[in-house]
């Protein structure tokens, strides 16, 4: 349980922080896509007797490079590139899983995660990815934010926006590999989009939003694990449900603030 808690906190914080970039860049479809395409890597790694995370990371890299290459061509948008890759790679992954008799029973782990079975190797991977993401955001976080806000000026300032795009997609792919263990590929989007959307409702500036989203992601991981313990439900779905509950609560708080502001404005205007 202790290992699961550490994994849940790391995966939640990683996805929460990077999800903010995903949100402001409109890359939610990419996040959804990468969670599906890495299923092929998982299947290949299982068949080859290699660590599942290694296969997932390899397919994540293939997806990132392919999306970037197709998108950079200019003829197809990035979403179109993803629309081509997602069904092809996910379909191949599911087909391979179906062919491998021994693995079929673990399909549920891929789809919904298996956080209660994390190993020391999984934790080392999660910690390494967390360190890499923290380092990358320290190094180029403000430049990544600039590209999201104003791509043309970032380019005019001399930044290689394609390189920064590649960095961001790569970081999201790494986070997806970690989160696959925690919540599975079907629910990964919940961690990648839920905490950032919640934080956006409560924050007016980007970096506080990133910090809050990381905290919310980690908190959802802990809450989901406790729900698993007490109510005997799957960890992945419980974490996703916790994300949803926090988002609903935040939207109510945000709505309350709006009503409060409107009431204050009306009172300030005075009787007509």
């Amino acid at each position, binding site marked *: 349980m202790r290992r699961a808690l550490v994994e849940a906190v790391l995966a939640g914080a990683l996805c929460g922080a990077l999800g903010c970039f995903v949100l402001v860049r409109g890359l939610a479809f990419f996040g959804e896509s990468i969670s599906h395409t890495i299923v092929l890597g998982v299947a290949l790694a299982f068949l080859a007797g290699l660590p599942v995370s290694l296969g997932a990371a390899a397919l994540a890299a293939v997806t990132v490079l392919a999306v970037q290459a197709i998108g950079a061509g200019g003829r197809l948008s990035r979403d179109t590139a993803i629309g081509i890759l997602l069904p092809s790679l996910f379909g191949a992954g599911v087909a391979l899983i179906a062919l491998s008799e021994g693995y079929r029973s673990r399909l549920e782990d891929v789809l919904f995660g298996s956080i209660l079975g994390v190993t020391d190797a999984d934790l080392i991977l999660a910690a390494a990815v967390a360190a890499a993401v923290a380092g990358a955001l320290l190094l*180029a976080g*403000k430049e990544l934010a*600039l590209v*999201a*806000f104003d791509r*043309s000026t970032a*380019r*005019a*300032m001399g930044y290689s926006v394609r390189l920064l795009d590649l960095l961001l997609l790569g970081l999201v792919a790494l986070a997806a590999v970690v989160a696959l263990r925690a919540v599975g590929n079907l629910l990964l989007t919940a961690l990648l989009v839920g905490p950032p959307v919640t934080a956006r409702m409560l924050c*007016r500036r980007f970096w506080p939003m990133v910090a809050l989203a990381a905290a919310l992601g980690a908190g959802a991981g802990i809450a989901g694990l406790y729900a698993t313990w007490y109510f005997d439900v799957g960890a992945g779905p419980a974490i996703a449900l916790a994300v949803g509950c926090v988002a609903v609560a935040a939207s109510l708080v945000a709505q309350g603030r709006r009503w409060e502001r409107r009431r204050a404005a009306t009172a300030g205007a005075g009787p007509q």
Partner: protein
Amino acid sequence: MKRAAAGSPPAIVALDLSVAYEGRPALTGVTFSVPAGTLAGVLGPNGAGKTTLLRALLGVVSHTGSVEVNGSTSYVPQLSAVDRTFPVDALGVVLMGRYPRLGWLRAPRANDRRVAAELLDQMGLSDRARSPFASLSGGQRQRVLVARALAQEGEVMLLDEPLTGIDAASQEVVLRVLADHCADGHTVCMTTHDLAQAARVCDRLLILDGRLVAEGPTREVFRPEIIRAAYRAELLSLDGETALVHHGVHPAP
């Protein structure tokens, strides 16, 4: 106030500049120069190559011929090129102009914040420093973007339609600040569809229509026959120094 010293090299020199997108020419054989300390206006109908010219000056589009910009550049994009929903306040946007001099790893420091606050004050927005960018009016957002370009402290400022879609008061603030910037020896080159304002404030004009129609001091270039030759059907009326044209929004570089 000081102008660039007489005899100093031009801030911008283009020789036989041509740009094509996927084989389709956008700008052909353009040759001009802009002296340092000049406020230059780039005019022309939609599709004339105004934004393409800025892209070439910024070095973000491949071209033939040569372009030389003496000094570092700063850039103000069209308002539509900026994500107005991004969670950032006015001060945060201006601080972005400090990023190139900060380099990787380093966050803005107290001195950067002081510079940004002073620039917002110069643009008449000191009371909106902590307001979300999304909550500002179009004119206020444009003023913030000009403040961000000033924060870069470049020698040559390039602006893509800074007067389009903003209120008259904001136009006046932007034009006053740009004139002061030039008076300090900097060079400004802006595209615009506002012929009357361009004729009023610009020292020089470049008139494009896929090629260079005319270039030179405003009083020599802003002539009815030249404007008509460039704008043709897009010109709605031309009366002395007042002219109206259809205008649209181009994709950002």
